Structures are given as structure tokens and as C-alpha cells.
């Protein structure tokens, strides 16, 4: 028996590989292939058609900054922006090492000496701006969620409160971020006074504007979801004499999770849209400022670079929605 096993041991991985291959080839049946092809092919055709149209139409549009950029120029500029980013990183790394070397030298001569550590003073690159924007939008969205979900639960649970708050929601919901922004800016500069501020004022302004504009869908969906809990389940909760908190935790919240997440996804989409506008107007760092700076810059490459930003904004928005969908699938019981 042992010899038998030994002789066959080496071939076991092979057998496994064969099995795996068979499983894969089973999946690659004609029908599966066809459906995969259809899934990939049609979107690919759509994108190609769009690129073709763009390529042909763009040169026809003459602006004061030259012809509207086609896909090729935009691709070139995205490479350019990446190059600028990595150059900047190299310079920053050099700056830091030089600074460290100098400080070491100073300390070696005089251990008592106070050394200064400065940040690299270079301008933020396109990628830095993306990171800043993502940070701001997530902060604003989190704040909106923290406000909207509990408030939505209260509104959904209490008919009187709901009636009192409803007109306010209806009025504030359609307000554009551009209208809020000056007010938020003034209030932030008046109230957030600190010698050593933890956050930049511009960050706070954009974040609060994002919050103000994006909390409504979550608020409304949460309240509707909470108000729509199956009455039989409410009766079960009453029969069990669940306390208010247990009732909310065990019955109301799980029941309205699907609705809440629908709201959150809409909110995140709005948050991202609002953020770009807010950054543009408030001159706070981020993608919006990048677009605005390029617009003001008015070089022959500006339009292409703005177009790169436009595509990046769209792509990131799409990714954010996908991430929310994944979270929803993890959390919601009905997925």
C-alpha cells in the first residue's frame, strides 16, 4: 500500500490540475462563451463607437485654445500627468533626503542645534488632487450618513415628527451646492478660528457643502424604509415587548437596510458631483480646483487635461458606486 501511495504521490498535483482544467473547460461551453461575449462585446462596441465619434467630431470644434481634444490628445495628456506626478515624487524624495542629510550634518556639529523639517513645497499633482477629493468626499459623505440615518429613523418612527420636518426636507432638498457654498464659507471662517487648525478651512467648507447636499436621499429613504416595516413584524415586536432600542436594532434597522442603502448610493453619487463644483468655486484643493486652474491656465493642453479630469471624475464616481454595492451585498440580508 505504501509503495503504491508513494508512486502515485508525485502525479497527484497533475491529477488535480487535470481536474481543474476539466472544470474550467466545462464552464467554457459554447453557451457560456456566447453569454460572456455578449456581456463584454456590447459594452465594448458602445465604447468604441463613442471613441470614434469623439475622434471625428472633436477637431471640428474650434475654441480659443485650439481644437477640442480628441481621444489621442487626452491619452497623451493622461500620460503626461502621470509623468509629472512621478517626477514630482522623485523631487520630493530628493528634497527629503537632502534635508535629512543636512540636518544630520548640523546635529553632528552641534547636537544642541534646532533642526527644521519642512514639507516639500511643490504644487500638488493631479493624483494628489484626486486623493484630496476622495478624502473630502468620504468625510462629507460619512458626516451626512451619521446625520441622516439616525434622523431618518426618528422621522420614520414618529408620524408627528415626520409631519413637522417634512416641509423643511422638501424645501432644502433641491438646493444647489453653489447656493450653500458662500454661506458655508462665511460661517466656517467666522466660527472655525484656531491658531493650529486641525483641518484646512477649505476642506471644511467643501466637506460641509457636500454633507448639506448629499444627506437628503439617505434621510428620505431611511425614513420611508423605517415607516414601511411590515405591520405583522411590528406586532411581533409588541407581543415580545421589545424595548425601544432592541426594537430599532432588531426589527426596524434590518428591515429598512435595503432602503437605506439605496439612499446611501444616491447620496454618494450626489456627494461626488457636488464636491467637484464646490472645489471649483471655493478654490479648495481637489479635482475641482485642478479643473479650474487648468481653465484659468489656458494653455494649448488645458482642454485635454480637463478632459482627463472629466474622465477620472466619471470613473471614480462609478467605482464609488460599485464599492457601495459591494458593501450593501455584505450587509443587507436580502442580497
Amino acid at each position: 500500500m505504501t509503495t503504491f501511495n508513494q508512486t502515485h504521490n508525485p502525479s497527484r498535483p497533475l491529477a488535480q490540475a487535470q481536474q481543474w482544467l476539466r472544470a474550467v473547460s466545462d464552464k467554457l461551453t459554447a453557451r457560456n462563451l456566447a453569454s460572456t461575449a455578449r456581456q463584454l462585446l456590447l459594452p465594448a462596441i458602445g465604447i468604441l463607437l463613442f471613441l470614434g465619434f469623439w475622434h471625428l467630431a472633436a477637431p471640428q470644434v474650434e475654441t480659443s485654445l485650439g481644437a477640442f481634444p480628441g481621444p489621442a490628445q487626452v491619452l497623451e495628456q493622461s500620460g503626461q500627468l502621470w509623468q509629472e506626478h512621478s517626477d514630482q515624487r522623485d523631487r520630493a524624495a530628493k528634497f527629503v533626503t537632502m534635508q535629512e542629510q543636512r540636518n544630520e550634518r548640523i546635529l553632528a556639529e552641534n547636537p544642541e542645534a534646532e533642526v527644521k523639517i519642512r514639507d516639500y513645497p511643490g504644487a500638488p499633482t493631479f493624483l494628489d488632487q484626486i486623493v484630496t477629493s476622495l478624502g473630502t468626499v468620504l468625510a462629507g459623505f460619512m458626516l451626512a450618513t451619521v446625520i441622516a440615518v439616525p434622523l431618518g429613523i426618528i422621522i420614520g418612527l414618529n408620524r408627528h415628527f415626520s409631519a413637522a420636518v417634512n416641509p423643511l426636507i422638501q424645501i432644502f432638498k433641491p438646493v444647489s451646492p453653489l447656493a450653500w457654498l458662500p454661506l458655508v464659507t462665511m460661517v466656517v471662517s467666522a466660527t472655525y478660528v484656531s491658531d493650529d487648525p486641525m483641518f484646512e478651512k477649505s476642506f471644511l467648507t467643501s466637506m460641509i457643502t457636500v454633507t448639506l447636499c448629499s444627506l437628503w436621499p439617505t434621510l428620505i429613504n431611511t425614513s420611508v424604509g423605517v415607516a414601511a416595516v411590515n405591520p405583522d413584524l411590528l406586532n411581533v415586536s409588541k407581543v415580545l415587548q421589545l424595548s425601544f432600542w432592541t426594537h430599532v436594532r432588531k426589527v426596524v434597522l434590518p428591515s429598512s437596510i435595503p432602503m437605506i442603502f439605496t439612499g446611501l448610493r444616491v447620496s454618494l453619487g450626489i456627494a461626488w458631483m457636488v464636491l467637484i463644483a464646490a472645489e471649483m468655486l471655493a478654490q479648495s484643493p481637489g479635482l475641482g480646483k485642478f479643473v479650474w486652474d487648468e481653465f484659468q491656465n489656458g494653455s494649448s493642453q488645458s482642454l485635454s487635461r480637463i478632459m482627463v479630469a472629466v474622465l477620472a471624475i466619471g470613473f471614480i464616481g462609478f467605482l464609488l458606486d460599485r464599492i457601495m454595492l459591494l458593501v450593501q451585498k455584505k450587509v443587507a440580508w436580502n442580497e
Partner: protein
Amino acid sequence: MSKPHLELTNVQMAFDTPTGPFIALENVDLKIRKGEFVSLIGHSGCGKSTVLNIVAGLLQATRGGCVLDGHEVNTPGPERAVVFQNHSLMPWLTVYENVELAVQQVFRKSMSKAERRDWILHNLNLVNMGHALDKRPGEISGGMAQRVGIARALAMKPSVLLMDEPFGALDALTRAHLQDSLMEIQQDLNSTVIMITHDVDEAVLLSDRIVMMTNGPAATVGEELHIKLPRPRNRVALADHPEYVHYRQAVLSFLYEKQSFPAKQTPPRTEPGADSATEEADGDAGTFTVHAAPSGRTALAQPAEENA
């Protein structure tokens, strides 16, 4: 039997409607012994569910009241567990967790964690659902879900078990099966049960007493029929038992001769204002399950059968 276990006295239930109060129940009197199995039967909209909801504490009678073991019933509570028509399990909890929610709530202080676990498993085994502990309600059939609903109710150790058409949404075979289980469990535990039903055979087979209600509005108890068939009861043996046939006939006669279905009464306003106490089951006007031949279970009129 000097003092009744559960007593409804002179109960009136009026609902406010835009066109003035709607009197659903008037002068309902009912005394129930401990361990008695009582069925409420009557035409749609006669307020059977309202009676049950008053006992459950989900509705407050506008006059009169309900006394259980010497205490007036004002609020819902686990000592009057309810089995709802549509199982009403939390769809996001597993079978085990659904029963656990109830056990946790009722026996948090009096039982240790291990005891609670045993008690949950015991009740689920009692209804033969021990095999599906980790399934969600959406993953099991309607009959299974209803079993879990019953297990959840039993797990509260209620003094009265209230059942609102518990088997109404099940197919005939599943229903028969669950009726048999319920009979066994009720006999073992000697629980007091009030059950609403539309099924004449179900009422006769399961009950110690059938309470027949008159047509609404202002419905009240019309007749009471004591079923003195020996237990345990066997549905096949009883099918042509003369007494059984006689009881059946008595119920049918009450329903179709004395209280023949209200001809073209505006469809029983489904208790406006009673949003928490839905009487949706009574919305589908007059669907009584009557089995024609004693042996063949041919249903003349059955509620929409749906088995998830």
C-alpha cells in the same frame, strides 16, 4: 372550573371612520378554561381578528375588557403569544435566531445561556424544524415557516396561545399535517388556545369548543358548540363518525342558514384606523373551506393557496 382562565366581558369595539364610528363588535362575552382549545369561526369581516387582537392587547376595546388570570389585559405581552397568518418571522434572521429573539426577550433573566439554547432547540424540535436551524425564512416553505412561527410562540411559554388563521395560507396537505402536530403539542402541553379559522373541518377536528360569530357590524357571539369527541382524534377515523358529521353540520347550518353570508353588504370595511391590527385575511369575502366528501378532501372554496 370556578374561575375562568380568560374572560372577555361585554366587549365593544368601535373604530373611528370619516363617516362616524364603525361598531365592529358589540357585547362579546367569552369565558375560556385553562387548557381549552377554542376556535372562532364566522364570516369575513365579523371581527374575529378584532377579538383576537383585543385578547393579544394589540387593540383596546372601547368598552368592556379582557381579563387573564385575574389581570386586565391592556398591552401586548409574551404571555399571550400570537401566531400570525403569514408566519411573521423576521426575514433577516435564521430559524434559530427568530426563536432566539423571543426566548432572549422572555427568559433573559430566568434562564442561563445554555438553558436558553436547549429551550430554543427543544421548541424547534417540537415542531420538527430542528433540521433547518440556519435557514432563513425565505429559504424554507410556507408550512415550515409557519411551524417556526408556532415554535416561537410556544417558546414564550404563553398562558394563552392566539392563532390568527395559522394554516390559512397553506395547501391542504401541509395544513392537515400541521393540524395533527398542533393537536399533539396542545395535548402534551395542555395549552390554552384561541384559533381563528375559516375551515369548518379544522374547527371541529381541533377544538374543544367552537365559538360562532354573527355577521358584522356589531358582531357578537352567536352560538357556541362544545365538541365532545374523544382525544386523541384521528382525522381519518372521524371522517364518517356520526358525531363528527353532526358537529360539522351544526357549524355549516349556523354559517349558511342562520348567518348566511351578508348578500351585498358593502365589503366589510377592513377596520379603518386599525393599522396595526390588520384583518387582511378577512378581506377576501367569505371563503370558507368546506370539504364535500368525508374521504376526498375536495375544497369547494378555499382561500388562495400559496406555498412559498
